[in-house]
Structures are given as C-alpha cells and as structure tokens.
C-alpha cells in the first residue's frame, strides 16, 4: 500500500511537472512575450529594455527553472489584458466550474443507477432496449449540439428554463443534464456487465436458496458489489468531466474556468490560458489520485503491492 501510494504520488508530481514544462515551451513557441506587450512601433532599445525587465535575456535553462519555481508557487505572471495576477483570475472562476462538474457527476451516476436497476428488474425486453438506445443515441451527440438542442426545446420553445448564466438552481438544470448524460451509455453498460458478473456468483445462488426474492437479492446482495466498478470509472470520469466543462460553459455562458480559457484564447492572453490549463490539470490529477486510494479502501481484494 505504502509502495503503491508513493508510486502514484510520484506519478502525479511528474504529471504536474510535465504540464508546467509543456506550458513553458508552448509559451516560448508563441514568440517573444515582450513583443506581445509592446506596440508595433517600439524601437530596438524599447524591446531590449522590456526583455531585460522580463528576464528574457538570461539563459533558457535559468528562465525555465525560474518559470517552474514561480509556477509551483502559483505565480503564472500577470494577465496581459487586465492588470491582475493570472492565477487570481482563474481562482475566481473555480467554484462555478466545480459546481457544474460535481452536479453533472451526481446527475450522471444517479441516472445510471436508476436506469440500471430498472433494466434489471423489468421483465419487459422493449423497456430495456429503449433505455439502451436512448443512452447510445445520447453518446453520439457532441456536448455543444446537445446543449443547444436543450436550449432550443426548454428555453426557446417551452420557455421553462433559462438558457444562459449562473444564479438560481434553474440555471444549473440544462448544463448539468448536458454534461452529466454524456457518458450515460458507458455507465449503463458497465453497470449491466458488473451486475451480470455478480449474478453468477455463489453467494447469489445461496441467497436464492434461502428463499429470498429477486428484489431482495438484487438490492441487498448484488448491488453493493456491482457498484464498485461503476464508482471507479465514474471517479476517473470526474476528471474527464472537467475537460467537458470547457465546451459546456461556452454553450451556456457559465462563468467558469473553461469559459475563461476560451475567452483568453481569443484575446491571446497567454498567462491566463496557461494558469487555467494548469489548474484544471491539477484538479484532474488530484481527483484521479483520490479515486485510486479510495478504490483500495473500498475493495480490500485489490492488492496494492
């Protein structure tokens, strides 16, 4: 366990370091930052002075180590458009992104759970097929298309729900449904597969032999075991959800980190882009680490050697 933990934490640190390194070289590829800050008519001396002020006249390796050192302290420089630190701009948006990601996560898992149980309990084959087809169809529609279709139906035609912004719970419904249902087909298939595996276990036969009913066996015995793989994959997907928030936030004008990154791209505000990408990657890495540790605790059979 200790060995596994150490290895995973090492891996996470390496990942974060990799992201920061990639960020450094990407920014350098974008061109001389001093040219971005100065107007086109700046003289040669102006450029030289700016380069010195920004420390760009030092050797590349020194600049790199300096960049890493400040990045690890959360300092990604100052936004090129607003005179505030890039990280503070990003941090302001984090609660909105987390709210969207966590709600979508709960919506996705909740729906998969209810529909999965319904598919197991019903004797009607057509119902099972309808549920599966709906999930498969949903999976084939990209987030932005689905989001706009939701807006078209529920905001434009029915006028039930707001289409833009963040505020009351009603603002959260459409974005969470859009993002949360994207992986529904995957969850349902996983849930079904693990329920099918449990079905063949000895303890299930024993429970039936003792005279327990279908529902009792399903809910009391099979469910706790069948939920584990679902929770694991969903946990990993919580990280992927963070990536999905970028598009969802843009569709619904949700004021989160993803939308900030997209806006900064059109304004060529590199420090903010890099800080945003770094922060989401960091959340992603941390969530994956927590899921891995939880998995070991939930399932003692997993050998963490």
């Amino acid at each position, binding site marked *: 366990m200790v060995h596994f933990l150490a290895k995973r934490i090492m891996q996470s640190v390496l990942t974060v370091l990799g992201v920061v390194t990639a960020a450094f070289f990407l*920014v350098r590829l974008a061109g001389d930052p001093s040219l971005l800050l100065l107007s086109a008519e700046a003289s040669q001396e102006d450029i030289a002075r700016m380069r010195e002020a920004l420390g760009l006249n030092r050797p590349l390796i020194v600049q790199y180590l300096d960049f890493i050192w400040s990045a690890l302290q959360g300092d990604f420089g100052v936004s090129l458009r607003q005179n505030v630190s890039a990280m503070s701009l990003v941090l302001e948006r984090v609660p909105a992104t987390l709210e969207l990601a966590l709600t979508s996560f709960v919506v996705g898992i909740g729906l998969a759970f209810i529909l999965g149980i319904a598919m197991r309990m019903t004797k009607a084959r057509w119902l099972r097929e309808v549920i599966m087809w709906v999930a498969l169809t949903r999976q084939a529609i990209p987030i932005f298309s689905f989001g706009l*279709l939701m807006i078209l139906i529920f905001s434009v035609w029915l006028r039930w729900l707001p289409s833009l912004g963040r505020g009351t719970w009603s603002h959260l419904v459409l974005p969470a449904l859009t993002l949360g249902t994207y992986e529904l087909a995957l969850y349902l298939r996983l849930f079904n597969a693990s329920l099918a595996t449990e079905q063949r276990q000895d303890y299930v036969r024993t429970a039936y032999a003792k005279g327990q009913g279908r529902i009792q066996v399903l809910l009391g015995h099979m469910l706790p075991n069948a939920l584990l793989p679902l929770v694991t994959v969903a946990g*990993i997907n919580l990280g992927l959800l963070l990536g999905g928030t970028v598009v969802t936030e843009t569709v619904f004008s949700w004021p989160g980190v993803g939308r900030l990154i997209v806006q900064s791209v059109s304004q060529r505000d590199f420090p903010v882009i890099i800080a945003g*990408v770094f922060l989401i990657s960091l959340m992603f890495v941390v969530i994956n680490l927590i899921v891995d540790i939880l998995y070991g605790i939930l399932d003692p059979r997993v050998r963490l050697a």
Partner: protein
Amino acid sequence: MLRLGILRTIAVTLLALMLVLILVIPLLPFYDPYTQNLGGSLLPMGGRSFDGKFYLLGTDTLGRDMLSRLALAGQVSVMIGLGAVFVSLVIGVALGLIAGYFRGPLESVIMGIADLQLSIPRVLLLIAVAAIIGPSVTMLALLLGLTSWVSYGRVARGMALSLREREFVLSARTQGASATWNIRKHLLPNVMPQMLIVGSYEFGQIIVMEASLSYLGLGVQPPLPSWGMMVSEGQTYLALAPSLVVLPSIALFVLVAGLQFLSQAFTSENEVVGAPERSKP
C-alpha cells in the same frame, strides 16, 4: 441486451447516408459552398431567394447554400479524422508492440508516457496548443493523432504480451528470426483486426473532438466550413432559424453514431469500448 444485427444494420445505414452526403452531393449541380447570396440569407429549408433560386436545406447568414456547405464540411472532417486515425494507429501499434515484445525498461518508459498523457485532459491540451501555435487542417490532424495513440498502444501491448509466448512466435525465434521480423510478420497481422475496431471507435471520438474545437473557434478556420463552426455561427440565430444549428448537428450525429454503433456491434457484450482504464496498482 441489444440485438447486434439491428445495431450493425443501423450503423451501416448511417455511414452509407454520410457517404452520400460527402461523396455524391458535391457531384450534383447544387450551389457552390462559398458563393454568398445576400438576397437570400437565413432562408428556411426549401426556401427561395429574391432572385428566385431554390435552396433545398436553406441558407446561412451570408446566404450560402447549407446543403453544399454541409457536404464540404463533412469532407473536411473526414479527411482530418482519417489523417489523425492513421497517425495515432501507426504510433500506437508500433509503441504497443515494441513495449509488449521487448518488455523490460523500454516497456516501463512507453507505458509511463501513456499514463502521463492520459492524466492530462485532451481537450485542454489541444486548446492550449491550438491557441498558441494556431490551427491549420494538417496541424489539427497531426495534433489529434499525436494525442490519441494511447488506446491503440495499450491494446496492442496487451495482445503482444500473450502473442510473444505463442508457439509460432517462439519457433520463429529459435530459428533465428529477428525481433523486427517477428513483430512485422507474426505480431502485426494478429493485432490488426482489433486495432481497426479500436480505430472505428476512435475515429468517432476524433470527429467529436475536431467539431468541439471548431465550435470553440480553435479548429478548422474560415472560409473552410466545418460542422462545429457552422453550429457556433448559427447559435446566435437559434430562435430565428434553428435549422442553422440543427442541420450540422444531425450531420455530426449520423457520422458519429454510425462509427460508434459499428465498433459496439463488433465488441462482445461484456467488453466496454472506450472505458477509461485505471492505472494498474
């Protein structure tokens, strides 16, 4: 749970429809996808412009023919998708087979890189790179390819691990066959069918990724059309002319659903294509 025959039929039908859109429609005498007609912008499906021209699927904000734009955008997407799948398949199969055949430190390094790449959300990586380098069609295919080799690599490695112990590989090795020969002649043909199934799933994923980037304005650049960009252009007119958003969305759905259903139909019930793998303890 699902009748695979039906799934397969639907998949083939959808893909055939897509082929008609991107291969046959451009041959028919519809309008040029770039020609603007300001006397007939935002026409509904089957609408006529002031100069009496008939548009089967209507026109966009600049009065350009939706049908031929959808067809051209489809060609662009499919080209990018095929390019990216080719790049990622070559890299993934090569690295996966090398890792599985040689094992040892080489394997640790390759799989370490794969784990590292999986631990950064792909959309973000692509956004950062596209934002800074600036996207072009070739660059897009290359970037999408470079960031999606991992699924092929993992499956190829897994298969190579068991194949290398099989009799025909062992006997070739005892007869002095080189590693290159063994990988090329014995391992490669055996992993290819599985790789193509992974490929058809990944193809769909790449189409979605490209469309999403283009929707965010970071993918295909105008004047070249792309379904994602068409949706984002039409978003402003959602209430006025919903077909601007709905039509490209349907086109995307037909292609992506066709590819996903196809890969699903060739996978057995309990395997789940596209399930993210947790790192092995």
